[in-house]
């Protein structure tokens, strides 16, 4: 936040008044808008007690929202682990000295980064079974889709991370007689992972949000249980969506806060990769999926 203070002078008396006036005008406009939304919702009977009452009943939580949340976290957790594995494997493969490894790895990463997750989930769920002659559960459809997409993004993050480790590190490692695998595994990857940690975590936020697409294939995650099924029971679709959105925001804010904490923590470390090295990757992780 150091730059924000650089952009303007310390407010003098006139600037203070101006800022206060702007604050009041904008604040009033904002409150007006909120009030308008409130009255509209009231007119549309969206604020009636019966719409919200289900959320006071334990059943709503124990049988709809919490199982949905658990399914969301389960898919996200497995997806995260697999994405990390996918990311590391393909990052290393893409940096391989052998073209017959690096080229296909690059093609796979580029392909899956470019295909919408929704298409991938549809394909794995509806299409893949025809190919492998085995049913694919909704859970695996979601997890495989998430892994292919987020894994590809992470692969690029790792690759940039590995490349941003100062050349002296691997030279020194080779000089003391390490093999290629050792240099990668012991020297480069750990440093790349640490440097890219905030990016990795924010990609995991993206992954968690993307599990919401699971409802498309009837995977009983938070959106499916909390919005679709709950509102089929109580007819309170908008109220349910608002509650579910708040839950997502809380969980993702915690994850984001965790990412910020990691960033500050790694900033205190002695070794730090200069910021300019990886703008592309920084963007990738923030650009996010659904």
């Amino acid at each position, binding site marked *: 936040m150091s730059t924000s203070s650089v952009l303007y002078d310390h407010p003098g008396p006139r600037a203070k008044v101006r800022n206060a006036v702007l604050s009041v005008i904008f604040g009033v406009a904002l409150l007006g808008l909120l009030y308008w939304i409130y009255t509209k919702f009231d007119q549309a009977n969206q604020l009636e007690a019966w719409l919200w009452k289900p959320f006071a009943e334990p*059943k709503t939580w124990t049988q709809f929202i919490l*199982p949905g949340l658990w399914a969301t976290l389960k898919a996200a957790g497995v997806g995260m682990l697999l994405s990390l594995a996918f990311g590391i*494997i393909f990052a290393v493969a893409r940096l391989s000295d052998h073209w017959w490894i690096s080229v296909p790895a690059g093609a796979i990463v580029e392909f899956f980064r470019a295909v919408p997750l929704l298409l991938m989930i549809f394909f794995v769920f509806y299409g*893949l*079974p025809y190919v492998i002659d085995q049913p694919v559960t909704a859970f695996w459809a979601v997890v495989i889709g998430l892994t292919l997409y987020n894994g590809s993004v992470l692969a690029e993050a790792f690759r940039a991370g590995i490349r941003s480790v100062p050349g002296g590190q691997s030279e020194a490692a080779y000089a003391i007689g390490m093999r290629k695998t050792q240099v990668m595994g012991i020297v480069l990857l750990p440093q790349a992972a640490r440097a890219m940690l905030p990016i990795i975590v924010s990609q995991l936020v993206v992954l968690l949000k993307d599990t919401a697409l699971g409802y498309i294939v*009837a995977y009983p995650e938070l959106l499916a249980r909390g919005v679709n*099924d709950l509102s*089929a029971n109580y007819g309170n679709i908008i109220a349910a969506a608002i509650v579910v959105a708040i839950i997502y925001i809380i969980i993702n804010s915690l994850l984001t806060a965790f990412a910020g904490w990691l960033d500050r923590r790694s900033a205190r470390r002695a070794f730090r990769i200069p910021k300019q090295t990886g703008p592309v990757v920084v963007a990738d992780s923030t650009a996010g999926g659904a």
Partner: protein
Amino acid sequence: MRMKRMAAIVAAAGLAVTMAACGGDSDEGGSGTGATGIVGKAESQKKLVIGVKADQPGLGLQTGSKYEGFDVEIAKIIARGLGVEEGNIEWKTTVSANREPFIEQGTVDLVVATYTINDERKQKINFAGPYFIAGQDLLVKADSTLTADQLAGKTVCSVSGSTPAKRIQENYPDAKLQQFDAYSKCLPLLEGGQVDAVTTDDIILAGYAAQSQYAGKFKVVGNTFSEEPYGIGLKKDDKAGCEKVNEILKAAAADGSYKAAWDASLGASGTPAPELDTTKLTHCGAV
């Protein structure tokens, strides 16, 4: 043909790589594909996986951990007839678009999910039943006079990939079709006046209209413009299973358990139980 196979190999190879990265997690859904039909499975394993709807009040509605509705009751009758206890039924949520794949892939053994018997589907799977004859109808606001022949220019809400949606597109090309993934999303729109009607089978509409929060607000027009015989979906080659299910339905009609199933679910809406016309039961894939 060759092109297709090549593509399949390429895709499979790509997946093999992914799978390798995933580690060996193949114990999920290992029901196998060389099934000897549901009769065999019910006998040997004493359990069944049955696909039902989760968001259709009165037919198949997931209320927390349980499913309830007419379809669910019918499914229980069939399971009982096959010698499977209620506690050994594994319920699976199906949506309109994934019923055939679920059966073909063996994700479920049976589908009892407002499943219309038609020729297109018969190409892929086998149907027992029908256990109920529904018809496509419109749900409109209680004070509306809209009927099916006035649909031109009106906005109709339905579920994508469903038969009713397809019929509207083909038979009423002048109607505007708003599609969602669940009927429950159509109802707030009908209430708010953004759509003029919700269309699907009359029995499903009746289920929604009877829900307490919508009581008195909507009505089913009551003039069906299609016949939707609801069948029980199972694997295409499972002729024996299909015949067995038909026998069970016949017995259920005779001993009153069919009526009991109705009374326990849709009967609450005040509609008396229909007669199950056993002469209409399908020939299970035979010509």
